[in-house]
């Protein structure tokens, strides 16, 4: 290509001539060529652009920098250019350079900085969650003040959305869990000829632990994420702000109905899950161990105390409260960009499941120590 530069020294005068196109594709080579060049043996420099066919703004910046570099070394600079368009570009660059401040460099953070920042953000997050809970409880008092304040319609709508419509998936999941647990234990029990004990095992493990947990996990994945996404999207579209300016407190209209709906519905869902899981176990016991339905139910009645069932049910509202509050809180934390909806939805499900398991562990220890 004919894009090149020549350096022609003439006593103490240097002529730098550019040829061909001077654009951001060609200045890289020129830059390298001139970077190591020693100007100090000359007294004046002429930059010749007469032979340049085309110049863009990047090249203009390059020329500007070159002439600044040369003049900073105490040399006289002369620009030889007759194209009005190019001169205009150069003038524009010069004007901008005088005006604009440099973009500040991002500060490099040390490890200590990063730890401090992270710790502070965790503290901030925690305190904002506490203030959310505080506002929630004060809203609860507002609900209790008068029956008229309770949004029955919204609660019913949410029960339908997050509980009734979840019945199918919870029934199916629980049935399969019942089948799997029964099948695995049947294999072990057969070795000892302790077939009938499958009833004790299934009864206690399903009613006490498995059903509440499975229900909570399905609801966390289904409704917890939905709450985050709904409220997050409402925040982005300023719907929440619009509600506030119209005097519709989102705590009363959006948050409390969801929490109450889930707390009411959860025990019922756990009950359904209990039934389906036990049926699953019963089917396997019948096919694999030859325990008839009659025998299974009679044994169930004899050995599985009602307390196991009630302990499982009691956990429901607590799990529901955790799932709903975390889902809603994460929705409120959504920032004004679409990425944060995904981020917060993921967080809400993970945190809700984690909180449910922690809560379950606490219940487990508490109930055992209470002798239940």
């Amino acid at each position, binding site marked *: 290509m004919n894009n090149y530069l020549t350096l022609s020294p003439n006593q103490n005068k240097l002529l730098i001539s550019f040829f061909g196109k001077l654009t951001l594709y060609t200045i890289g080579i020129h830059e390298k060529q001139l970077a190591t060049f020693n100007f100090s043996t000359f007294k004046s420099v002429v930059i010749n652009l007469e032979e340049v066919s085309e110049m863009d703004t990047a090249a203009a910046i390059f020329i500007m920098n070159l002439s600044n570099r040369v003049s900073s070394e105490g040399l006289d600079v002369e620009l030889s250019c007759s194209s009005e368009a190019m001169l205009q570009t150069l003038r524009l660059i010069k004007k901008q350079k005088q005006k604009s401040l440099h973009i500040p460099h991002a500060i490099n953070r040390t490890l200590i900085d990063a730890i401090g920042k992270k710790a502070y953000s965790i503290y901030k997050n925690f305190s904002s969650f506490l203030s959310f809970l505080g506002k929630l409880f004060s809203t609860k008092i507002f609900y209790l003040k008068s029956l008229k304040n309770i949004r029955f319609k919204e609660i019913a709508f949410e029960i339908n959305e997050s509980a009734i419509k979840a019945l199918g998936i919870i029934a199916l999941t629980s049935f399969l869990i019942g089948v799997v647990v029964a099948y695995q234990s049947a294999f072990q029990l057969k070795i000892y000829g302790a077939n009938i004990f499958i009833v004790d095992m299934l009864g206690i493990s399903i009613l006490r632990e498995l059903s509440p947990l499975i229900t909570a996990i399905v609801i966390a994945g289904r409704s917890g994420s939905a709450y985050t996404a709904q409220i997050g*999207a409402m925040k982005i579209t300023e*719907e929440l702000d619009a509600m*506030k*300016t*119209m005097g519709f407190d989102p705590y009363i209209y959006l948050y409390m109905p969801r929490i109450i709906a889930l707390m009411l519905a959860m025990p019922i869902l756990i009950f359904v899950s209990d039934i389906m899981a036990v049926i699953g176990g019963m089917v396997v016991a019948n096919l694999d161990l030859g325990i008839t339905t009659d025998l299974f139910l009679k044994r169930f009645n004899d050995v599985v105390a009602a307390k196991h069932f009630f302990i499982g049910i009691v956990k429901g509202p607590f799990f529901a409260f955790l799932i709903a509050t975390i889902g809603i809180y994460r929705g409120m934390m959504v920032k004004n960009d679409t990425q944060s909806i995904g981020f917060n939805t993921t967080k809400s499900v993970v945190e809700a499941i984690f909180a449910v398991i922690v809560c379950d562990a606490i219940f487990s220890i508490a109930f055992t120590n209470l002798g239940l």
Partner: protein
Amino acid sequence: MKTIIRVENLKTVLDNIIVHDGVNLSVKEGEIYGLLGPSGCGKTTLLREMVLLQKFAAGSINILGYDMGSIEYTAAQKLRKEWGVLFQAGALFSSLTIAENIALPLIEYTDLSRKMIDEIVEFKINVVGLKSSDALFYPSQISGGMKKKAGLARALAMDPKLLFLDEPTSGLDPISARDFDSLILELRSLFGLTIVMVSHDLQSINDTLDRIAVIDNKKIAYEGSLAEVASAESPFIKTFFRSKFEQ
């Protein structure tokens, strides 16, 4: 004329950045008041502070005799029924139709019959220039301009004395924008509204505003009528109103 909004020595700090430092302005009854300024100067923030969506660090905002810094819940609820707010993108409730959006405050706050509410809704829909047949669309089914009109209809639902508009003409085509301007003027003469708006649209500023406040560099660079804006010393005003000065 009575002063409806008075902002005094307002200071706002967001994420350790000072947005306003000593902002003073006052809005009088019945005027269309514009908040102008370069991007990021805190016009929308100021508007959000006025409608109780955001807290400020120091100073005071007084609206219709209530102090926004220390207002109580019941007073705030009362005040909220007396103003209407139009958000930039309309902020219609996406799960409700246009008609339901407009009817919502009427259903919640009044004892009116369903039939009466329907009539009011129809009137508001027509007054902002929408067709009655648009009423049953959901927000996702209508255009940006229609969303703004529907948002305005919702803001007007309770017949407020005070209307806050956040960039009412942004994102509209020029013809819709001019229509919107004349609509705002018409509404003012029809209902005697006081309107506070944030705007970037020069044409709209020229056509509608009675008085303006220019926020620049954390302070009010100019407050007063549009005609005398040339007297102000601010680089933003010089560039923004250049075409106006040259006329």
